[in-house]
């Protein structure tokens, strides 16, 4: 298995930490991982993205170039910028709270997730990134929800243990978006 995922959004939407958590979880379940951030003077208040690779085998280049298996786009410019990086049949998870139209590209699987609304319902807009991760988990299954929560515990440490339920709830709601859509088919 090799997952090549681009996470992208506005600075502040948590796309970098989303990618880090994906890598961190991958490492804890014994996969090879890499996390490559965009960096530059444009980052403050601008767009941010990172390339995450989770693989059973040693990773060559950490750069994803027209071979993304999934894109997680938290805003419209990110979706437009990265939809063409997807392979045929790749997944586009887009934040439908901020993106009104679905991706134009055909031959990909597009999944709209109202991440901002769901995150607010769960209790904190800042976990919108976790809602998106939940949707990705349910569709691509690189590892389980329990794996992510276990990794989160390590990242947060005892001092921030209290944030686990909020994040877990957000992950679950994101998973439900994909699972209910699958049932609907």
């Amino acid at each position, binding site marked *: 298995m090799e997952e090549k995922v681009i996470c992208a959004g506005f600075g502040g939407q948590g796309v970098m930490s989303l990618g880090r958590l994906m890598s961190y979880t991958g490492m804890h379940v014994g996969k090879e*991982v890499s996390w490559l951030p965009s960096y530059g003077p444009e980052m403050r208040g601008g767009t941010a993205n990172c390339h995450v690779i989770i693989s059973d085998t040693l990773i060559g280049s950490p750069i994803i170039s027209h071979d993304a298996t999934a894109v997680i786009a938290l805003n419209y410019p990110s979706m437009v910028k990265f939809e063409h990086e997807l392979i045929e049949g790749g997944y586009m998870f887009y934040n439908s709270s901020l993106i009104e139209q679905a991706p134009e590209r055909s031959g990909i699987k597009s999944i709209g997730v109202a991440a901002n609304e769901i995150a607010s319902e769960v209790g904190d807009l800042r976990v919108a990134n976790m809602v998106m991760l939940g949707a990705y988990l349910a569709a691509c299954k690189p590892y389980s929800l329990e794996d992510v929560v276990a990794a989160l515990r390590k990242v947060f440490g005892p001092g921030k243990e209290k944030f686990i339920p909020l994040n877990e709830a957000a992950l679950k709601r994101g998973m439900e978006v994909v699972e209910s859509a699958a049932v609907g088919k």
Partner: protein
Amino acid sequence: MEKVLMKGNEALCAAAIRGGCRYFFGYPITPQNEIPEYMSRELPKAGGVFLQAESEVAAINMVYGAAGAGGRVMTSSSSPGIALKQEGISYICGAELPCVIVNISRGGPGLGGIQPSQADYFQSTRGGGNGDYRLLVLAPANIQEAVDLMTEAFDIADYYRMPVMILGDGMIGQMMEPVVFKTPAARELPEKEWATTGTGGARTPNIINSLRLDPAELEKLNLHLQEKYERVRANEVRYEMHQTDEAELVFVAYGTSARIVKNAVAVMRRQGVKAGLIRPISLWPFPERAFDELPGSVRALMSVELSQGQMIDDVKISARGRWPVGFYGRSGGMIFTQQEIVEAGEKMLREVSHVSGV
């Protein structure tokens, strides 16, 4: 040992502290700022000293001083910052002092940009400073290798009494990968009897100096340095041969370029094109002997660099006319895709076939 997920810049620091680094002098510059940030926080906890100098020139001269006093010391910067340090580096080599210099390089010339580049190959291996000196230059391709080389770098520097440079690029500095911190095989290190640590009235003072006005004395130093560099050439060459068996086309690439080339090699092999890779890990001493190990099937070499072609000079020297040497590169912070390399490689193979009438 447990695997930890770390950013390249921070992993280099953790490795340096494990390798015995206790003094850091530097000046901020992107894309290596996590290094001084980490060192300012962690080095004091290890009983060390972090100092942000007023400039790169000051920083390298602080390194000169601390190394002269026998301390395990490092500095880090990025391309134009390393350019500013060249005078100090030459002095440190002239005074035969050990230290570690990290260059997380970016596009040039001049202030250039801040995206990854490998255009400092000449600066690192040929020296931007004056005189007949060498740096031992190590170029990791992933963060585990960066950690392993960095942990050992202080021992290597002490062993030969010369600076070791770790040459990365913005990508190696900024990306995260899992690493395991290992303890390298210990070298038997000589006592630093030359260090200026105070005589206690018991001996004649040591003098750290790079000024030698007597030509005979200066030539003697130069011959001594050359003898040392020969030992480095004999003992410190590092490289990786990747899928070179039965290869027709062998790429030569180092650092993060080599990772993209490995992907390209995999694509070409799947398409039935026999491609391979020589990955120099030590850039100086350059792994000339790797080329002598190539099989008779090789028809062409291609140097692939994030520059307009610098390492290709060493590739040509090492090829000694046995194979045509092609080049593919991008620069200024632009990074080639594996597909670009596949196409460049296939084009070269077609040209070689045409010339030889195959």
